């Protein structure tokens, strides 16, 4: 089974850097069909990269994303491939090509251009602090090991 683990986010944004931090951590465990990639770049580029590669059996994405939950909340799910109206897709593509990096943006753009495999898993975390700087908020810091294992468990068949 070929699996891609991708960490989505900006560096130097405390909890907002969770995704790329996880890709740094997990790259040490890559191998045996599991590839790990820093997805701190725009989703159209990611889409084109995916289209250039053999199809993955599964893609696992990890990112911090604000959805109004209790900070530190970890949620893992299989993505349903649902897309918003065309106008919103267009806006997301425009954001993507001019450099915006976010989990939702990546999901929508990559799906809109048909680059995802059927099996896409997501581990998302509610951030507490996305201000400038390094390190994480205490509530996310204490869950790093749990998040890492949650992501890694999704690489298994």
């Amino acid at each position, binding site marked *: 089974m070929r699996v891609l683990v991708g960490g989505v986010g*900006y*560096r*130097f*944004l405390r909890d907002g850097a969770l995704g790329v931090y996880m890709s740094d951590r997990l790259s040490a465990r890559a191998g045996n069909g599991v590839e790990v990639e820093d997805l*701190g*770049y*725009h989703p*159209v*580029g990611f889409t*084109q990269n995916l289209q250039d590669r053999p199809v993955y059996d599964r893609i696992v994405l990890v990112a911090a994303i604000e959805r109004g939950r209790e900070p530190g909340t970890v949620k893992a799910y299989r993505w349903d491939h649902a897309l918003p109206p*065309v106008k919103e*897709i*267009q*806006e997301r*593509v*425009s*954001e993507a*090509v*001019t*450099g*915006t*990096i976010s989990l939702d943006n990546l999901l929508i753009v990559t799906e*809109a251009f048909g680059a995802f495999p059927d099996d896409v898993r997501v581990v998302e975390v509610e951030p507490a*602090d*996305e*201000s*400038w*700087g*390094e390190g994480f908020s205490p509530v996310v810091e204490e869950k790093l090991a749990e998040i890492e294992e949650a992501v890694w468990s999704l690489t298994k068949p």
Partner: protein
Amino acid sequence: MCFKNLPIDFDAAGNASLRPGVANPYAYVETPAPTPIEEDQERMRQLVERNGSIRRVDFDPITRVAGALAFHTVVDLENREVLETASMATLFRGYEIILQGRDPRDAIFISSRACGVCGGVHATASALACEMCFGIHPPPMGVVARNLLLSVEYLYDHPIHLSLLAAPDFSEQAVRETNPEIWARAEQTRTRGRAVHGYEYMSELMTDLTPLTGKLYLEGLHYTRVAREAYVLIGGKYPHPQTVVPGGVSTTIDTSDLNEIMLRVAKYFDYGRKTVAIWNDICDFFYEVNPKYKDIGTRPANMIDPGQWDDPYAFDGTYANADAWGRRRWAPPGVTVDGELVTTSLQMLNAGVEEFVEHSFYEEWAGNGQGNENYKFPTDPAGNPLSPWHPWNKVTIPKPTGTNWKDKYSWSTAPRWDRLAMETGAYSRIWVAAQTGPQNYRESRFLHSTGNSMQIDLPKADLPNDPIEWRIPETWGAFERNRARAYCILFTAGIAYDNLLLAYDLLRKGGPDAKMSTPYKVPKDFRMGVGLWGAGRGYLTHHMTIDKGVIENYQILTPSTFTASPKDPFGNPGPYEEAVMATPLLENYEKPEDFKGIDVLRAIRSFDPCMPCTTHMHTGNGRTVSRDIVSCACGAEGNHAH
């Protein structure tokens, strides 16, 4: 000489010095900004009495612009004019703060993250600043590799803007919604560029500009892939290159790599011709429909560009020789005022820059306009005078406060050159290169500067090899910005091809010139440097001072900081603000509720705004600045925290 407003004189040899006998030469008295219309009850009453079509229209965020840009207007829908504007960068960029105390080489990789698209130019500007500090420069092949990397980055950038960000405003969908009478005319109007782009009627061309489904939209998207494929052959990864280092690039290039890049660059010969033909048709059609379209986004042609693409045998990385190596660039540095080239000196370009924060969410660092006389660098390393508000003297002190159009309303500073608002973009580099003229423009196999135009003579691909010439337009505005950017695809392809041929030659000869990088040591004493290398969308500088082997101060000045700037302390608006104020509202609306602001958006988007450099949030003192802040009548309701 070149300065009209700064207190700088020149001797007979052209050496700059502060005007003698002026006690505090850079000091200024702030001109208060006009009272916002919503706060000026008497003016508001008069306007409403005169007609009932005065409306506040805020664009927040401006869509199809990455990052965080919001724009406030008050419009008179009856007289079809814009009465008030304010441009707001709504998020804080904190790279300057996070870079303090780090190894200067870290700046290359950290500053690259300032943008999800233009990582290569930020990395390169950082590397140039390092090289100036370290006293090194790349061998010729290292310079050529850098030129190739950044030319293909621009070949990514220009199709993005033209096809995916600007073109939708001229698509069937947009024109039908905002000016149905123009759509009816488009259905009857034959194009002039059919032999090149294949469209017989304007309506067919405009249909294919439609987002997501239009052939031209999808073709633009495809060409981002072609450029990116070439980019990773040198940079390793897009958009954050892994190979840009002080003294060159940390990769090797062989003939096979060059062939791969050549194959991709050559595809832009025809794509560029087609894009030029499309934008010529768009501009000419709209001008024929209504000549007032020339006034959309118009402002004086005040432009600044530090140039890019170094001569591999002239670039020595020093500030002392910056004028000499700068003028050897394929895109030479320059400043235009009212369309006339006033300097091509990199040192004067640098010395004339100041950043003001009277209308920005920062604390002033130099005595609130008085210009504390004891500021750190009264001169640059060559002895030219520097302002207390020059980037080398700048201190970034964020100070989030409430938004008020009369006071502070943006996270962008107000950069000025000779205290004038400057715009910058792909067009500014072709403009400066065109005005450099045949005597002074460097030799190139494919590019010929005439003094008022740029002739582009690329090898023939599939399309007919008709002469291509971009001419400096009589009226400067939104349509001409887009048209010039289309020509910049061919301009950039020519530079890439020139550099490919140089690279083949260097590989063939071998020897020290064919090495990719120069060894170096990070000095432990005090040094100052600057990376002067424009981004795809214009001006970019990284100013750095280092001491004891770490960064003491780092200042990034981006193109959108210039163009999205708020008003300055002299009462002058920023370029977006000025361009929108001059924009006639040509949209077809019967009721105020139907107004969509297409002409305002065309004006702003023509600058190729890109705000990812400001896409990070700042939280301080319990207040969070977020992207959805400014849709209330802050001016009318008084200050409030975001």
